[in-house]
């Protein structure tokens, strides 16, 4: 007669369904379909989606591509003795960001309203790209060049925080991203 005893009815699967249960199952099922179809819907009509464009890549090749971009488009250096280059890549072009223990390289300067193909890859451990205060969070893996096409909306100085634990210096792995008009 209870959940800790064998069912009283040998043919319990023939017991009629209770109305409250049936109603709730139908409502819940309908809601589950909404939950499911929102995702493809957003791919069609929403603006915030990952294209899942990614390439296998060696750290050497990725470093070389980044160095090439820095050479071409460096506008200044920041960070005192660290001399971290600030790079202003052309709108619509590729911009490379290296995640490594425990820094981001280089600093990107983007223009508001323009689209960029931002590449993310880790050189050593796994890292997390967290753009604040926008709160866009993307996993960064070693060996995978992940391309994200973003369109910054507002000018300003943004923070990049590593949000995948990467060892003792994890908290020190922060950087900046500039968006100019």
């Amino acid at each position: 007669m209870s959940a800790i005893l064998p069912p009283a009815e040998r043919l319990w699967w023939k017991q009629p369904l209770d109305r409250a249960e049936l109603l709730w199952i139908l409502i819940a099922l309908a809601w589950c379909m909404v939950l499911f179809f929102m995702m493809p819907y957003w791919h069609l009509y929403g603006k915030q989606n990952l294209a899942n464009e990614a390439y296998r890549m060696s750290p050497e090749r990725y470093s070389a591509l980044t160095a090439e971009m820095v050479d071409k488009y460096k506008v200044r250096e920041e960070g005192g003795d660290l001399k971290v280059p600030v790079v202003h890549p052309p709108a619509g072009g590729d911009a490379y960001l290296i995640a490594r223990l425990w820094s981001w390289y280089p600093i990107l300067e983007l223009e508001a309203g323009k689209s960029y193909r931002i590449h993310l890859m880790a050189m050593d451990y796994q890292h997390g790209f967290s753009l604040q205060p926008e709160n866009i969070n993307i996993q960064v893996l070693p060996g995978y060049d992940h391309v994200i096409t973003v369109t910054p909306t507002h000018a300003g100085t943004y923070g990049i925080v590593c949000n995948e634990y990467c060892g003792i210096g994890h908290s020190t792995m922060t950087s900046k991203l500039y968006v100019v008009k």
Partner: protein
Amino acid sequence: MAVNRMFRTCPTTGLVFHQPAERLIIVNAVTGVVFLLLGGLLAIGVVLTRWPAVHWLAADRFYQVLTAHGIDMLIFWIIFFEIAVLYFCSAVLLKSRLATPRMAWTAYGMMLIGALVNNYAVMRGDSSVMMTSYVPMSAHWSFYLGLILFAVGALIACFVFFGTLVTAKSERTYVGSVPLVTFGAITAAIIAVFTIASGAIILIPTFLWSIGLISHIDPLMYRTIWWAFGHSSQQINVAAHISVWYAIAAIVFGAKPLSERVSRMAFLLYIFFLQLASAHHLLVDPGLSSNWKIFNTSYAMYLAVLASMVHGLTVPGAIEVAQREKGYTHGLFEWLRKAPWGNPVFSGMFISLIGFGFLGGISGVMMGTEQLNLIIHNTLYVPGHFHATVVIGTTLAFMALTYFLIPVLFRREIMFPTMAKWQPYVFGLGMYGVALFLMAAGTLGVPRRDWDITFAGNTFPYEFPGAAFLMLGLAGITGLIAITGGGMYLLNTVGSVFLGRKIVTPGFAHVRAAAGVAPAPKPVSTAITGHGSSVGAWGLVAPGTFSLAMVFLASFVLYYFINWKYLATVWPLK
């Protein structure tokens, strides 16, 4: 080898305990509680460091403590206790002997050694890699070896459980189908086999890599398979604690399921779909397609969410029907108002159910939505979510069950009944706060697993808004309240089990059951009935529960679209 066929019957509940099963349940449960104590002590370090105003531990110590806290709580405390639950749901509920007690002891020994070896690795200080131990960050080889030993032990225990089901069936210790609670335990055990196999597939190569026999492990492959272990192990918890909810509803109220068919179908959906959830952790990873992400993250169209929503109705619904049959029929909620709120077995279970649904369930769907994950991934929202599912859901349900087991299994009186009465409220409500405030901080972008979010001394620091610090402070305060509640539980259970007054029953003895069969249950003969006699408002048997379910749905819908609205404001991405 002679089979031990000694049984005792509990004088108050009529439950039948096989002697070796009883010992194994006791030892597994007690070991679980010891790891809960350890994890709870470590929680003090975590809470007092992430509370920015206190910021207690140094970075290396913090990451070490956080690693140990995660593994001791999520794996060792919960799985030891779950093995006890599996033995209880098979041997005790089916009135059967436990199959192969020796293998069960071997399983226990392996799990214990594994847990100790893993803790040793973390204590060494060179294995602060968090529970996830993402490659290529490496831990000492004993870290992986400990986990593998533990997993193999747990797998053996699952097979002892399956063997007991076979024994009970062949020795005809019950009539008809297994009880619903046992069915839920079977669900948990099936998911456990899948989970542990995934763990072995990824941890064995990682162990070989840590001693230099394998040169490279792909990080994405690691994440995909590791999460089939890491997330699925939380699904074992869901199946187990929902079984415990049903058991408590039956024990406290004599509640029977609204219908066996619906509840069992819901468990079946878990078996089919819950394991797909490894995708929840990979939604913003490179290298996987959106089709893969959407299908897996939604458990194939949210069929496991459907199952949870069904249990969320049928557990309180069964209680409502039982209460209405006792005469609490006034209005929508008299059944709930007049429920035994002073009985920690019930209050713990109900606080667990509400928190799991409203906080854990809803937030889980948010994180598991492909695009919404962009504004949540790896923020404090994630620990907020799983403190609602695993701590409020699983741990609190297990705590509630303990208050029932102490007199029944350990045959001791609860040492501090008043403290027991208040404990689920202190622990549960403290943890409600922790979950909520961590989620709020995560919504503001605060990362998880971060020693210092003031980023003091960094060349390019980022300053989080003041509200984030307020949320972290509140999480710290409620965290201490929850730890106090955990301390009350530990003090009371350990005190009662070792020093509590013994419950003495005259003429108590273990009895050798004839031919290995416990006394057959009396055949139950009731006519096929629905719940016709107690129909409440709107022609529903459980109108109060149904209206609570509608409140739940409304919060769910509202919060879901608020998150989409928030997502729509961030930079366009494609």
